């Protein structure tokens, strides 16, 4: 395959990994985060430290990165998830920016100049495999009672509590899994770019992830997959328009939000059953319209 296309696919896959995590938090649990780039940074720097400084193999390094991100998210969550309203969102925003500023000043990791020489372990094969595993685990989770509890928390907090759901616990679990996914995405990114710089994990990265989740449709894994593929490759496809491409990107997002505020998939999933249903509906419509003509 063309190295350029491969590169775009790898980047989409890395974004998808982070978006899947954010989708669980925002789409299924109803919590907005503007600090997921921070979790990516923690995962990325930790994984890179494991491979560069401790010569660890790639996969264990990624997992340690995920655990580190998850651990930090647990601390943030324990402190802020009991707050009502938008305070959690603001806390994550502060966390993301703080993480970036701290990394700017840690000379051990190269500080603001960046950290070159990370081994290039990430390739299309392992990105695809990791993403498939991530999607299967997430889909299983959401279909289970634990997933239903998270959706219940999104829908109506008070009623969830009365139904015996520990709202705080499920918010925290959702955040921790979400941060672990972002951590793996960070690790993949470090070993693809072979270079890390705190600037890569600025607020724009967090908002990009949130935009993808909303663009794809809140509460839909298929939507997140579609959103990550479309919105990561769109600026590349539009490269011919040079400076105008980001304007077109912005327009595409605005148009989707106006014409389809529930996002591309709007809570629906691509599954064999749903496809069957869709096709039989289409067939039914066609039959009806042909009957009408006679």
């Amino acid at each position, binding site marked *: 395959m063309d190295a350029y296309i491969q590169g775009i696919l790898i980047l989409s896959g890395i974004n998808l990994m982070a978006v899947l995590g954010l989708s669980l938090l925002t789409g299924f649990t109803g919590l907005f985060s503007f600090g997921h780039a921070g979790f990516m940074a923690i995962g990325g720097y930790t994984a890179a430290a494991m491979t560069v400084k401790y010569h660890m193999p790639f996969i264990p390094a990624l997992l340690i990165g995920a655990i580190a991100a998850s651990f930090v998210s647990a601390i943030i969550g324990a402190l802020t998830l009991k707050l009502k309203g938008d305070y959690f969102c603001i806390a994550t925003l502060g966390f993301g920016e703080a993480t970036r500023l701290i990394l700017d000043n840690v000379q051990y990791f190269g500080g603001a100049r960046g950290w070159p020489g990370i081994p290039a372990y990430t390739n299309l094969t392992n990105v695809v495999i990791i993403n498939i595993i991530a999607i299967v*685990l*997430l889909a*299983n*989770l959401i*279909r*289970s*009672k*634990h*997933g*239903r*509890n998270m*959706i*219940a928390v999104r*829908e*109506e907090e*008070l*009623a*969830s*509590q*009365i*139904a*015996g*759901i*520990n*709202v705080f616990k499920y918010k925290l*679990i959702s955040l921790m899994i979400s941060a672990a996914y972002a951590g793996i995405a960070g690790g993949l990114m470090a070993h693809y770019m072979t270079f890390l710089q705190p600037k890569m994990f600025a607020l724009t990265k967090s908002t990009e992830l949130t935009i993808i989740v909303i663009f794809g449709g809140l509460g839909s894994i298929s939507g997140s997959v579609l959103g990550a593929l479309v919105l990561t490759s769109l600026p590349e496809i539009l490269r011919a328009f040079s400076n105008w491409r980001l304007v077109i990107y912005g327009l595409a997002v605005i148009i989707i939000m106006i014409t389809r505020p529930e996002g591309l998939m709007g*809570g629906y999933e691509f599954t064999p059953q749903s496809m069957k249903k869709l096709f039989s509906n289409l067939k039914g419509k066609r039959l009806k319209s042909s009957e009408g003509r006679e």
Partner: protein
Amino acid sequence: MNLLEMKNVTKRFGGLTAVSSVDFEIEKGSITGLIGPNGAGKTTIFNLITGVYKVTEGKITFDGKDITNKEPYMIADMGITRTFQNIRLFKKLSVYENVLTACQYNANYSLFEAMLYLPRCRKQEKQLKEQAENLLEIMGLIDRKDFIANNLPYGLQRRLEIARALSLNPKLLLLDEPAAGMNPDETAQLMNLISDIRKKFDLSILIIDHHMDLVMGICEKIMVLNFGCKLAEGTPIEIQSNPKVIEAYLGVEG
């Protein structure tokens, strides 16, 4: 035997005393009514029992255990659940999903078993789905299983909220104005439903309502609240002839 006991329970919001040293018992297996003029503190009592509000003073025990100031989800796990005056369903989910979400009192598979979809998770999920369908069958909602909760007619939304509460397998069910907005016909249906539920699910019920024919018709005992204080307590006949109750509802002559 008393299932629920409230001893000297007081709730203050700043300077306002919403409930003032109320003593109250619910007998096991009974249907009890809680009535009083608007703002008397009826819903506050529900919120205190279910842990939504914290008690300022006093003690609430359920089934011999102290539940004062426990978290709502713990109290739900112990067997108290409720419906709300302004219906609170999971609006965007289907009827089936609403009940299935609450149906989980005997599913204990872990998060990891769920993510890997291990046998224990599969088996318990199957049981939960059967339970949810059974319950919808009993409550007469099975033919609307795939409707989105928000699109149900009002009466059925109330019924679904009761179904969701029952899926927790509660020992005590609190109904907050279940007949609000219903016509006499629907109210009569609801009365039948409530007595049916008590028999089938072997539970105790506490009802707040302003429909006197409903409350007087099915409750064995009634407590009257006024301005946060207990005004009277007794059988429907005693309450109807109690001069203090008549005064609170209709005012004094002359």
